[in-house]
């Protein structure tokens, strides 16, 4: 690749990046369409070029090791063929082909590839000569293709320049966008191998040339002048004996003017004669050409003796500037994320380590996870997600300032290193700025996209002195932030770590308990107040008392499950066990519905319907014998999805109860639209019954409201007889609580279920029932 085209593609890549970062919406609207179309054409062309690189890599693997197999390799030939033919024959390429020069080049690409195809197909692994031939011809395919990309970006550049904004945005965003020249960089990667190979073979030829010098200077002349290697020779006094054509060109001097003179006086740069005589291999030196361009030379010299008396020094130099640039490019790529141009994890780790090594310096590490990125990726596709990430990178760069290091750790996770924050509050403010920078929707060709960020912060030295510790602690804080809902910022603390540790222990224990079927269920009867008969049982999960870690509450268990993704399996297990029990009771002749609490995380929301269907199916249970208790939280978070889901379950016949009513938002509008059968009055109101008029009024209101909406009302936590009496007088339908029956193992409940059936009509009707129950 010549330097002009290299520079051009790097520049083109940069400008593409700038355009992406700035967002097309920032250009004047009437230009935006043109620009975008030109950009897309450029993008399409570089995609084709990316296909070429991909194929070149496949070719090299196949030729060297026969991997993957021939059939797969042939598939890759065809994949690349399609990519090229799409350029020439399909609408996506049409805009490119409007340029007659590009059209000519494109047909050339296709023709060369089709000519090459038979040889590619016949290539045998291990046949180095054949590989070298097809590789060279593949380069012939690549050349016009690269030219197309350059021209496509040229067009984009002139279109962008015409919009008048490029100049102002370029300077400001250049730094943050550098890495976005990823495609150009990829191209370079492909070239590294061949460059190095060239240099090596040239070296061997040069050595042969040097030995020819010993025999006949004339033949050396002819030979060395044709070499693409700079060769110079000096006599014992160090005077110039020979400067070959390549060396003369490179150094910018005339050989005739240099012969017989001291090299320093001829204007010959030291790089051509002053390499270290003791070094046996190549040493690499740099020199500035007369035109001001810096070049890198790999040089070596040999002292050759004639009959042990006269010594001549032959000096050879290979121009490795391109390789050096490619190496720098590689180093850059190794430390950067090719999509956004931000630093990658490697670079972040190095930078953090060096910051932490400084004595007494405070550093804040912000880990940031995008909220809502997955939705964009899923609904609009990965290219849209990529464009969004690029835009986010630009926003973060703007908000973080020049002092900060921003890295993309993968997916939608970013890290920002804030050097020397004054205190924790300063780190929080900084994180706030990062979050604010994403508040405005991102405008891309996919429309306006909205994302937010959850941020976890860890400070050094307060929260850790090593990179690992800091990363881990920031991650714990981020985890907590994500669990608390969107757009939250959390600073690490040791309490957080302890809580995390306990959750982790619980989650591990829960996982093995689930696997071993060691969890148990308790059933608490729900009685119909009218006749005191159990009409259902609430299912309660219990951590076995003799199991480590001891003393886990059901709340902790559920929280750990929700945060570790075990909530799905746990819910499925509870549903199935409960349905089996209900089926058993049905078979025993005293059917009793089971009421299962389901936590509605986004994860379970997706799978609940399937889990319910499976549980019913496996148990062979009528849906009417299953109730689901949900809390208000789900209504607030995912109203539409939850309504639709519960509506479908209800159509199957499953009953839905709203748990803990009155403690959350209790938005009445929700009640109206939410498919429900029962309303459960929170235990706190029931507990206060009899302590004053307020709770009485509240319970009364809930009962009336529920009845007006045709819902059954369940009172939870009934513990005292007077509460029960009041509930009855208010017209509450159902009740549960220690007064009426504690949560018990299923077999105990079975005995109880048969009792009212036996006694049947002997039960006295209300209200006397309340009085008889009172002394109990």
């Amino acid at each position, binding site marked *: 690749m010549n330097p002009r085209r290299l520079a051009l593609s790097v520049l083109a890549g940069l400008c593409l990046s700038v355009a992406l970062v700035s967002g097309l919406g920032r250009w004047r609207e009437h230009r935006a369409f043109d620009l975008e179309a030109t950009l897309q054409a450029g993008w399409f062309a570089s995609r084709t070029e990316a296909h070429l690189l991909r194929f070149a890599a496949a070719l090299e693997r196949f030729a060297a090791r026969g991997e993957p197999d021939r059939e797969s390799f042939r*598939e890759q030939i*065809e*994949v690349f063929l*399609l*990519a090229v033919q799409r350029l020439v024959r*399909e609408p996506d390429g049409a805009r490119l082909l409007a340029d007659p020069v590009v059209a000519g080049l494109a047909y050339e690409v296709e023709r060369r590839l089709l000519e090459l195809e038979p040889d590619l197909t016949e290539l045998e692994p291990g046949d180095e000569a054949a590989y070298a031939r097809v590789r060279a011809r593949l380069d012939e395919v690549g050349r016009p293709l690269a030219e197309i990309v350059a021209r496509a970006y040229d067009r984009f550049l002139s279109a962008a320049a015409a919009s008048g904004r490029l100049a102002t945005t370029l300077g400001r965003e250049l730094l943050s966008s550098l890495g976005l020249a990823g495609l150009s960089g990829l191209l370079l990667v492909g070239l590294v191998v061949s460059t190095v190979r060239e240099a090596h073979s040239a070296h061997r030829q040069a050595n042969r040339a040097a030995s020819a010098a010993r025999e006949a200077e004339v033949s050396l002349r002819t030979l060395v002048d044709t070499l693409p290697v700079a060769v110079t020779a000096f006599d014992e006094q160090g005077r110039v004996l020979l400067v070959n054509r390549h060396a003369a060109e490179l150094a910018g001097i005339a050989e005739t003017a240099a012969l017989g003179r001291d090299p320093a006086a001829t204007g010959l740069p030291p790089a051509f004669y002053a390499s270290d005589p003791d070094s046996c291999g190549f040493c690499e030196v740099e020199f500035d050409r007369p035109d001001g361009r810096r070049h890198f030379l790999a040089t070596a010299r040999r002292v050759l003796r004639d009959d042990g008396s006269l010594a001549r020094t032959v000096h050879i130099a290979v121009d490795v500037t391109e390789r050096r640039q490619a190496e720098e490019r590689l180093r850059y790529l190794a430390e950067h994320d090719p999509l956004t141009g931000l630093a990658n994890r490697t670079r972040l780790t190095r930078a953090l380590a060096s910051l932490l090594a400084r004595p007494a310096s405070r550093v804040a590490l912000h880990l940031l996870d995008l909220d809502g990125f997955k939705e964009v990726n899923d609904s609009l*596709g990965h290219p849209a997600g990529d464009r969004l990430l690029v835009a986010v990178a630009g926003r973060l760069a703007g908000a973080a300032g020049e002092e900060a290091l921003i890295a993309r750790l993968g997916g939608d996770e970013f890290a920002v290193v804030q050097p020397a924050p004054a205190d924790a509050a300063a780190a929080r403010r900084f994180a706030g700025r990062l979050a604010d920078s994403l508040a405005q929707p991102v405008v891309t060709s996919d429309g306006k996209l909205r994302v937010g960020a959850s941020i976890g912060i860890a400070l050094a030295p307060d929260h850790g002195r090593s990179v690992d510790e800091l990363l881990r602690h920031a991650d714990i804080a981020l985890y907590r932030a994500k669990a608390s809902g969107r757009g939250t910022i959390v600073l690490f603390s040791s309490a957080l770590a302890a809580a995390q540790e306990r959750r982790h222990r619980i989650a591990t224990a829960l996982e093995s308990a689930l696997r071993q079927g060691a969890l148990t269920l308790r059933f608490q009867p729900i009685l119909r107040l009218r006749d005191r008969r159990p009409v259902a049982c609430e299912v309660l999960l219990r951590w076995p008392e003799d199991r480590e870690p001891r003393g886990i509450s059901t709340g902790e268990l559920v929280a750990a499950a929700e945060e570790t993704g075990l909530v799905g399996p746990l819910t499925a297990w509870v549903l199935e066990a409960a349905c089996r029990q209900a089926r058993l009771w049905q078979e025993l002749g005293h059917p009793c519905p089971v009421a299962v609490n389901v936590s509605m995380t986004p994860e379970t929301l997706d799978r609940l319907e399937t889990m319910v269907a499976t549980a019913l199916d496996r148990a062979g249970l009528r849906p009417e014998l299953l109730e689901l208790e949900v809390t208000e939280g789900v209504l607030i978070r995912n109203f539409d999805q939850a309504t639709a889901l519960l509506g479908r379950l209800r159509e199957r016949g499953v009953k839905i109860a709203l748990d803990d009513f009155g403690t959350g938002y209790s938005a009445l509008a929700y009640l109206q639209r939410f498919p429900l059968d029962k309303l459960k009055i929170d235990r706190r109101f029931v507990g206060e019954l009899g302590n004053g008029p307020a709770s009485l009024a509240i319970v009364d209101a809930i009962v009336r409201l529920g009845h007006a909406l045709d819902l059954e009302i369940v009172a939870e936590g009934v513990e005292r007889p007077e509460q029960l009496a009041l509930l009855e007088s208010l017209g509450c339908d159902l009740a549960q609580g220690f007064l009426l029956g504690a949560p018990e193992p299923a077999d105990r409940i079975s005995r109880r279920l048969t009792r009212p059936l036996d006694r049947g009509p002997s039960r006295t009707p209300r209200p006397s029932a309340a009085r008889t129950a009172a002394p109990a």
Partner: protein
Amino acid sequence: MRFLLALLLSLSALATSPGRSEVGGLPPPTGRPILEVSGAIGRTNAPGKALFDLPMLESLGMRELVTVTPWTEGEQRFSGIDPRALLAAVEARGRELEAGALDGYRVVIPIADLERYPLLLATRRDGRPMPVRERGPLWLVYPWSTHPETADQPYRGRAIWQLRSIVVR
């Protein structure tokens, strides 16, 4: 002819060794596998995945779809299978498919698309298997003629060609 032979072979394999071929629930492919289905599936014929060769796929029931495509000119006559038949064959349980192509392209397809549109997992065009250079061997074809909105995003990107793998999620 080779196709027939492969079909015969797979049939005789089924007939002679039902015990072995039922491991994982699916008979193993006899020819070169062209599609790999993994993820939330109930039937497999390799560890954690189901591999299909062309005859296996086509035995799920061939259908035809005549449509224009956003990339080529004129109407095309595709034949292939209903992707739902494939999902049923592996007992897929999930909401979306992560599809991967021979050229490294990946896209997520909601299973709802399969219900909303009469999609075709095309194995043939004009009755002939499609070579890779013509977007084969498998192309998820949307009914672009009858449902023109599927020619735009997000559907456009889901019409994955050179399909090689599906992860059910």
